[in-house]
């Protein structure tokens, strides 16, 4: 029997039981499409996170206090009081002459409400210095960033992130206007003059929702942020390294310096390079991908069991047909070929439709808002190949045993059975 004949016989049997065949394939369709979609979501998330970390700037090393609590609208300053990092640390790193260090910027980030006229918006207030725009690759749409002079003066000036500016001023030019920033649930409010607006930052950049003010001008006015020794506490210090510099080396040198300054044998801060963050995020999302893929894999397995179940039922129902085929000259091999081909056809049909649905769904999900988060999906060719091979394997495996059972049918008994 030629493979084409086997395929024709399989199609005939599949179409003879359309509903049953469709339901059997459905198990595999769901399995294959969910493998593809979930892997695409996992990999898309990974790329989103990686892009976000890259978007922070280039060749950065971040230092944060290990004592710092998570910031929230009202608890922000309380967490900051625990910070062991001070402005002096940043100055020391800059002055120490560690090879590879290009720029250092300390910052205090607190959540606040920004108010202009009748409009207001929640924003993160980043108190920092003039070097921050360069360290973080922030481009200016209009006006200018904080100048070194304003750093020193402690001027009450503000640079707005693109979304903050658009919400507060609705298309009007904000330069020269006043913006009021309200901290700690409104207990402290300060007025600032807008001197610049940032370009809209790509991707999921947080800079769009931030307001930048000189460190000495704002945090400098909040006495409780100072240590007993009179140094200003900061939440984070960013160190920019020369491109191609050995970041590991820079990290070690900075750690050594800070341990010395803090007079402690164990670090009371966390120091991470962008690469560290990317690999940590990649590890997390790879684990997520594997987890999602395994869950989908289980549904694929269940689909395969469905195919085998139906093939076994089919063999039992078609005892008489098998007997007739044997009587007109079909060998045991022909019978095996028939049932394996049928299971393979069902599975591959399910696999191909599943791939189409999986790829279609992944495309449809890409860029959609889901629970306030923008979804990114990244279809992996290997996941398609894997899903297809698994579907074929499932078809072959789940067809083989029923096919073997079919060859044990006694043609005489089958033909007598009326």
């Amino acid at each position: 029997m030629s493979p084409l004949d086997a395929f024709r016989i399989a199609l005939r049997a599949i179409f003879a039981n359309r509903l049953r065949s469709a339901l059997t394939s459905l198990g595999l369709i769901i399995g294959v499409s969910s493998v593809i979609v979930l892997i695409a979501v996992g990999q898309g998330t990974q790329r989103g996170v990686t892009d976000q970390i890259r978007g922070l700037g280039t060749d950065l090393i971040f230092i944060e206090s290990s004592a710092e609590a998570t910031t929230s609208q009202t608890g922000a300053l309380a967490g900051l009081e625990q910070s062991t990092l001070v402005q002096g640390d940043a100055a020391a790193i800059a002055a120490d002459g560690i090879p590879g260090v290009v720029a250092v910027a300390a910052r205090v980030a607190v959540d606040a409400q920004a108010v202009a006229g009748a409009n207001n918006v929640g924003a993160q207030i980043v108190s920092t210095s003039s070097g921050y725009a360069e360290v973080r690759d922030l481009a200016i749409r209009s006006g200018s960033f904080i100048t070194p002079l304003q750093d020193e003066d402690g001027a009450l000036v503000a640079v707005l992130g693109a979304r903050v500016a658009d919400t507060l001023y609705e298309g009007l030019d904000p330069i020269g206007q006043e913006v009021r920033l309200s901290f700690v649930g409104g207990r402290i409010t300060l007025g600032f003059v807008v001197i610049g607006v940032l370009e809209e930052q790509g991707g999921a950049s947080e800079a769009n929702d931030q307001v930048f003010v000189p460190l000495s001008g704002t945090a400098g006015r909040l006495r409780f942020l100072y240590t007993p020794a009179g140094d200003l506490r900061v939440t984070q210090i960013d160190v920019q390294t020369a491109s191609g510099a050995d970041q590991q080396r820079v990290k070690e040198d900075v750690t050594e310096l800070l341990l010395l300054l803090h007079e402690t044998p164990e670090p009371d801060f966390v120091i991470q390079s962008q690469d560290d963050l990317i690999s940590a995020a990649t590890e997390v999302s790879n684990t997520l991908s594997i987890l999602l893929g395994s869950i989908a894999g289980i549904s694929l397995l269940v689909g395969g069991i469905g195919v085998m179940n139906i093939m076994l039922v089919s063999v039992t129902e078609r005892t008489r047909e098998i007997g007739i085929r044997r009587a007109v000259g079909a060998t045991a091999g022909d019978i095996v070929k028939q049932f394996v081909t049928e299971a393979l056809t069902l599975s591959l049909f399910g696999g191909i439709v599943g791939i189409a649905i999986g790829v279609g769904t992944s495309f449809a999900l890409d860029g959609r808002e889901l629970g306030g988060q923008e979804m990114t999906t990244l279809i992996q060719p290997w996941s398609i190949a894997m899903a297809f091979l698994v579907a074929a394997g499932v078809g072959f495996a789940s067809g083989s045993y029923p096919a073997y059972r079919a060859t044990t049918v006694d043609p005489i008994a089958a033909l007598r059975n009326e």
Partner: protein
Amino acid sequence: MIRLQDVTRVYSTGETAVHALAGVNLEIGGGEFVAIMGQSGSGKSTLMNIIGLLDRPSSGGYAFGGRDVSQLSEDARARLRGSAFGFVFQSYNLLPRMTALEQVELPLIYQGAADRKRRAAQALVRVGLQDRITHLPTELSGGEQQRVAIARSLVVNPLVLLADEPTGALDTATEHELMTLLSELVDQQGLTVVLVTHEAEVAAYARRTVRMRDGRIVEDSGAPLVAAAPDGPAQ
């Protein structure tokens, strides 16, 4: 053409062994029309299954066309069965949802034969069903279904046609038409037909009658006369 020597067939059902055939010697020559008669349980169907290579003797020898076929492998028996034997059963054994033409094509698929549609159509013409080629079994009368089954067994140009109670489900008029068709195939085309039946009227169409009881041949109306020569002398 067919020579069985001391053939037995024992079925073991649990502890008791049933001797369906208890030493059968039978020789059938080419072009014979033989009826095997007997009560149910006499072993006549078992005999037919062994002749048609659907079943294997427990002991004894079976030579087909001068060649020992009792030791053939399962696949070799399937191939020989497909090319040399045609089967016709009481219950027609047609596949549902297949047209008459497709039913008749079936044996050719397993032979890997070319020109299948034309040969299948010719076989349907031979049994007088030229107007029923695209009909499904449910659209055919009992007699017509049995003709499709005969066409299916003839399409491979078999040497032997084995018919197990072929008219059991048919009325007398249809039975006559069908038996006449079989007689014509023997007379005009030299086909060998072995017919299993328990009805004397049906057996009467055959030229030779073999009676069986308890797994043995108890009466044989005639040893082979015509074509025994190529297989050696008659017993």
